[in-house]
């Protein structure tokens, strides 16, 4: 029984770590309020693809800092930041990028049309581009994302009423959608500013929901 439990935990850990890797042709949705650490997580998802070629962060707020991306392991020479604060041309710019890059982290402006998002997801599928989308408003329409990672909460360690400094962030995520086999799962990742973002806890699966994507 003990062996079975260990194997089960390892499987679970492997699965949860798998959520933190983009898949070619799939869209991973990062959903949550600003400040919950999803920008850093989105940039972290570009780290592995950046080993083999250029990757792009599409920045609609003009605030993304490459320094945070470098800390998470993105190869500096292979990171390009595309700044697009005009929602009307955002779909065109995103489509142009999907035509050529292998991995993209894209902020989705408020008011992006459902039809455009579906077309972009289809284009990503055809071009086998690994995409992470971070909606600035509501979530993506159902069927667009293969995996949805929703930030449920963030806690910081290190700062204490004037003492210390921010050292470690723990982010509770909920994975759902086809990429999570239709089961809603919660897990926690830890980020210390180095390029390691690791799964630190295994939480009980949430209630099963209908798969999306």
């Amino acid at each position, binding site marked *: 029984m003990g062996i079975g439990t260990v194997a089960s935990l390892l499987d679970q850990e492997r699965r949860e770590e798998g959520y933190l890797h983009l898949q070619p042709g799939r869209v991973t949705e990062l959903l949550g309020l600003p400040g*919950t650490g999803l920008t850093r997580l989105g940039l972290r998802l570009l780290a592995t693809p950046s080993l083999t*070629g*250029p990757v792009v962060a599409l920045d609609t707020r003009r605030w993304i*800092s490459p320094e*945070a991306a470098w800390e998470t392991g993105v190869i500096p020479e292979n990171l390009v930041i595309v*700044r697009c604060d005009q929602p009307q041309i955002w779909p065109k710019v995103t489509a142009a990028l999907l*035509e050529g890059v*292998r991995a993209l982290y894209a902020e989705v402006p408020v008011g992006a049309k459902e039809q455009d998002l579906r077309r972009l997801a289809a284009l990503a599928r055809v071009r086998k581009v690994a995409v992470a989308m971070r909606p600035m408003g509501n979530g993506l329409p159902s069927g667009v994302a293969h995996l949805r990672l929703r930030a449920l909460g963030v806690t910081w360690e290190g700062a204490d009423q004037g003492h210390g400094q921010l050292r470690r962030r723990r982010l509770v995520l909920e994975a759902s959608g086809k990429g999570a086999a239709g089961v809603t799962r919660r897990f926690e990742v830890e980020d210390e500013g180095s390029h390691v973002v690791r799964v630190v806890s295994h939480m009980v699966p949430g209630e099963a929901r209908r798969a999306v994507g």
Partner: protein
Amino acid sequence: MLIVDDRVTGATKEVLAAGVALGMPRREAEALAPFATVLIRDQGEESRRFEPVVEAIEALIPRVEVVSPGLVFVPISGAVRFYGGEVVLAELVEKEMTRLVGQVRGGLALVGVADGPFAARWAAITADAGRPNIVDDTIGFISRLDLAALRESLNADELIDTFRWLGVSTLGDLARLPREALATRFGNPGLLAHRLASGEDRLVDFREIPADLAVDASFEEPLESLDAVAFAARALAERLLKGLRASGVAPHRVSVLAEAAAGGPRERIWRSADPFTEKALSDRVWWQLRAWVESGGIPGGISRLRIAPADLSDEGRQLGLLQDETSRIEAERALARAQALLGPDGVLQGRAQGGRMPQERVAWSRWGEPPVDQDRDPHAPWPGATPSPSPALVPSRLRSLEVEWDDGMPTRVRLATRWEPVLTWSGPWRLSGRWWTGEGDADRYQLVTSVGAFLCVVTGGRAYLAGVYD
């Protein structure tokens, strides 16, 4: 002020006195010297103006190879026999050049003769106007050249600096070092440097080039507009390189042939020390076609276009183990399209530089342009720098932030329309300003709320947002 590749390469005394330095980015220079007239290098136009010179040389000696507007190589072994000697031939070429170039705007025509393009180029550079430099002892001539002669061929300033540091100052000194040791220590660049220093230019690969590697296109409606010609040039250059890549080779010379709808074919060879990249090749094809079209050399428009590799090597771009050339090229195209939609400032790359605040630690440059020179060493100690993890969102300049304080301790922060209690914080960390420039001191705080953490700067009694730990 003369601009090449968005950098200042020449300026008048008045412009330099305004603080502009050679090598400075164009925008920075324009800000410092708004009165300056900006001249941007147009190599297409240079190529068009240089075309009569190439034609004049071609009338004397066939198989002229153009490297860039202003520099041509000509293999002369056959012509020497025809004209009766190197001296006669070189003087003939020099005389013709002086007639074409020397009388116009005080130009200089420099002619050098030596074994191989590298030595011939330096023979021309060190020649006097009106006196061709005919080098009899190529190896002896090369050995006296300063190491800086390798700069353009190697494109590796650091390697040259390292050689100097090791006490090597001329190519002769370098040639005396054991080649194996250089290859072991410095890899391919070291090997290439030793070859050039030893008078061994890149050997031309005489292998037979299959005819099917050439690409051509015929046009029912002859191309007359420059736009159509540019499009065709780019498409054909892309096709050629794609085919060559599949064969695992790269071109150092290409032959560009255009057939006129109402005339005969025109052909020109372009040469490059490094294998042609897609952009370099399409630029050269475009310059050549533009020169022919604008000089009236293609009567009736272009009815057929052909680009054929004339010299191939196995050299390609040196890639990392995991790198993929195809994906790089596709990504470059995609980024160029995004840049066309957003403008050059919409597609950026960052480089680490030293600094205490997140805003200072990234040197931005437009994608596709050389990185901005920066003298802030990111590896130097920067006492007081904000520690990692860095904020993922950093405004380009500090934003005003409303913070409520209680006896020097932050209690609430206003985010949009609501106040969020500060759960915990760290700081203040003092940032001493440059008092001699009027900059005040500032205190930095990391504020943690239930909706995220923020980097806050307090200076002059006001709080500012410097970053969001999103």
